[in-house]
């Protein structure tokens, strides 16, 4: 008896067959599924956003807001605090930088990103000096998980900002106040001088108008006439501004030095780790000053990186592997550029790299030699696989 024949003797076989025959007769025409999933994702998480600069708004001497409007008329929704990774091309080099969106989520006509000049910043120089209305860019869709999560965050939020780290909070503050949301925000915002404060007038204005928003700028190098709080965001200052530190979730966004300073201060006032949310921060300005950097390697040391199946590339120890690859025209997807999201993951086949603190690598990735190229600095000649 052939296998087909004995199957037919199973009880219920004919019934199931008949059921299938009827279902096929009246069933689903799957040709209509064509393109459906892709279309759906274009509404929520498009792979690429095409943005045009609608306006350039000067905020301070060193910072401007670029108001980005959609080229095709649609921007996906985001949660206040998320960022886009903006792609920039200059002299044949395509690189990218993540920028928090500073406009509110309910403002669906544009995304504001606010850029502050970075010393010797290849990208910030381009964005601040050469970009004008009408220029077009590509970016990723909004990403990241630095936002208010009602499932376990307190309704009372304390936002600790340093410098341009105020941008994600600006989006949150605008959302909470404009929409009359049932949350309170304390913003403690550290800047070097009074002139460096971004959004100062708007923040003062909102604090005056809304009872659920408290604004406390803190100046580390105050002028003689400065009337704001001065110093750094330490335990005493937080106690003074907040009075009660219980039942609050703390959010930190600023340069890496600020995290090193503020985390122990938060511990001093008894804030448990689960109530502290930290936005990622970019690579340190000088990687060779990071703890653990091998002293015998100079930041200027140059190594050769050979890409399996591709070309060989020159890379300096003081620059991330991702940047070196981009400079040489090798395409590696990138998103957070802070070592966390794993988009720029490559396999290290031979050689050594330095990985700074804060890199989130899967355990089995580490065991198999994968690295996040945005947070890996060559310490020898390398061979990698994309």
């Amino acid at each position, binding site marked *: 008896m052939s296998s087909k024949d004995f*199957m037919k003797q199973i009880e219920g076989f004919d019934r199931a067959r008949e059921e299938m025959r009827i279902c096929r007769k009246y*069933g*689903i025409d799957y*040709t209509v599924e064509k393109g459906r999933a892709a279309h759906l994702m274009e509404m929520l998480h498009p792979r690429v956003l095409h943005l045009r600069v609608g306006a350039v708004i000067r905020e301070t001497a060193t910072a401007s807001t670029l108001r980005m409007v959609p080229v095709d008329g649609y921007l996906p929704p985001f949660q206040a605090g998320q960022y886009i990774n903006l792609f920039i091309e200059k002299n044949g080099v395509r690189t990218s930088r993540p920028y928090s969106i500073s406009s509110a989520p309910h403002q*669906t006509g544009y995304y504001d990103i606010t850029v502050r000049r970075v010393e010797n910043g290849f990208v910030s120089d381009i964005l601040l000096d050469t970009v004008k209305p009408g220029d077009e860019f590509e970016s990723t869709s909004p990403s990241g998980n630095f936002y208010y999560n009602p*499932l376990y965050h307190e309704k009372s939020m304390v936002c600790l900002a340093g410098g341009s780290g105020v941008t994600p909070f600006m989006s949150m503050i605008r959302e909470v106040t404009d929409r009359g949301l049932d949350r309170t925000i304390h913003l403690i915002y550290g800047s070097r001088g009074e002139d460096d404060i971004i959004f100062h007038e708007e923040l003062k204005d909102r604090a005056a108008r809304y009872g659920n928003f408290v604004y406390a700028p803190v100046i580390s190098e105050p002028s003689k006439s400065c009337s704001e709080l001065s110093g750094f965001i330490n335990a005493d200052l937080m106690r003074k501004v907040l009075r009660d530190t219980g039942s609050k979730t703390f959010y930190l966004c600023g340069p890496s030095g600020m995290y090193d300073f503020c985390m122990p201060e938060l511990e001093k006032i008894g804030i448990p780790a689960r109530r502290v949310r930290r936005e990622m921060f970019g690579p340190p300005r000088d990687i060779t000053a990071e703890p653990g950097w091998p002293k015998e390697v100079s930041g200027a040391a140059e190594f050769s990186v050979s890409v399996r199946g591709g070309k060989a590339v020159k890379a300096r120890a003081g620059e991330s592997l991702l940047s070196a690859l981009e400079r040489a025209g090798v395409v590696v997807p990138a998103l957070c550029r802070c070592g966390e999201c794993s988009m720029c993951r490559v396999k290290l086949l031979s050689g050594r790299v330095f990985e700074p603190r804060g890199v989130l690598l899967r355990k089995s990735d580490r065991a*198999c030699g994968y690295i996040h190229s945005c947070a890996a600095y060559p310490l020898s000649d390398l061979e990698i696989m994309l």
Partner: protein
Amino acid sequence: MSDFDAIVIGAGNGGLTAAATLAKGGAKTLLLERHNVPGGCATSFCRGRFEFEVALHQLSGMGDEKFPGPLRSVLHGLDVLDRVEFIPMKNLYRLVIPGRLDIMLPADRNGTVEALQKRFPAESAKIREFYDLVYAFFNQLISVFYLRDPEASREKYPLYFKYALASSQEILDEYFTDPLLKLTVAAYWGYMGVPPRFLTFSDLAALIFAYIEFKPYHIRNGSQALSNALIETFMNNGGEVRFNCGAAKIGLRDGAVAEVVTDRGERLTTGCVVSNISTPVMYNELIGIESTPKEKYEEMRGSTIGPSSFTLYIGMDCTPAELGIGETTNFIAAHEDMDRAFTQMRDIDEPAMILVSCYNVSDPGASPDGTCQIAVVDLQYAEPWLAVPPSLYASEKYRYASKVLDLVERVFPGFRKHIEEIEVATPLTHIRYLGHPGGAFYGFDQYAKDSRLVNPPVQSIAGLFHAGSWAAEGGFQPSLTSGSSAGRAALKHIGKRGR
């Protein structure tokens, strides 16, 4: 001369075992994966101090070295057993209906029978008889279906011929009275996606038999460790993998596979493709509606897209013991009506039955000391989520997640207070990362009419093979196994015998 002997599209469970099988068999193989990480569902992601397992809850079919299950043999053949650690669980699951039922079944036949008899003494004799039936039936199934006994007949294997396509609910009704008992025995139905009324007894018996005999397993460092190990096997045997590179087209010539065009526009010639993507996407997008044989669409017409899930990935700032969690696998049901629970998979109002997996119970290294990692799964079809406007998507996610956490709190009070990280995935998240219609990680719904007994797979495009949940049934073991079978069939097709 082709560019490659074979091209595998998709590095999910099925694609990985297919690719590793092909490379080990001496075929010059290319593996394309549009993501930057291999694994498909079998992956992990990092948040804060935690690395979250995305999809694996209880790996079936492993068995131990003395009594290896079918999956262990497959993985042994792919050289990963010495590089990946598989951790057995002692128990099947704890099942709770708050205030009404709380029972734990060990991964042991007698232990399970006794636990059930203790809780349901009035049905004591029938409980023993039911498990006798499951075992006797499944042993017959092994002889007929897996070992292909040439003398198979109704007389020789009466149980098989009587029950193979029977509705599991009818058998549960025949043996048991208490609906709580029926739910306890059949709680694994969620691993198949259809309730006992629609689940063939072959499938229910397989779940019960396999998990008891071969034990449920977890993987050290999560399923990503297995995915990474399979990639290593593939590369060590000369395979070439391209991440961030999807397939855009499968080109046919005279009805046979001739080439694959990548999403970067590169044309690669090959006579053999193993597809590890969903069947509708493969025909609609890669082969094209015009080139797909009509009968393939006819075949699909009769099947429906299976469920996806609403999943919470949670990092806790305390140990499982502090939460009162003593089992890795916990089912929490709001009620005992499995048909209604199935209906509730199509709305986003109230969760009916959730799975709470706390990996640290069997693997203390699943997260840093003093913390634990938990995944909460609620099976859901994508439809209601497709109707949520993008602007309300985030708030709907939080609203429903809150309901799911309410149900968790009824069994583990104080749960919310310990959340340190949480990430919410919906069926839309699964659509985004898997590319499957409906985010259906189990593939098509598996009703009796969809059984392979009724519809033996037919190959209609020469050189095209399928691996993964859309070709087999859903779940890790079936996907991994289907890939190695597809790989072997592909080797035969290209004239390599394999090693």
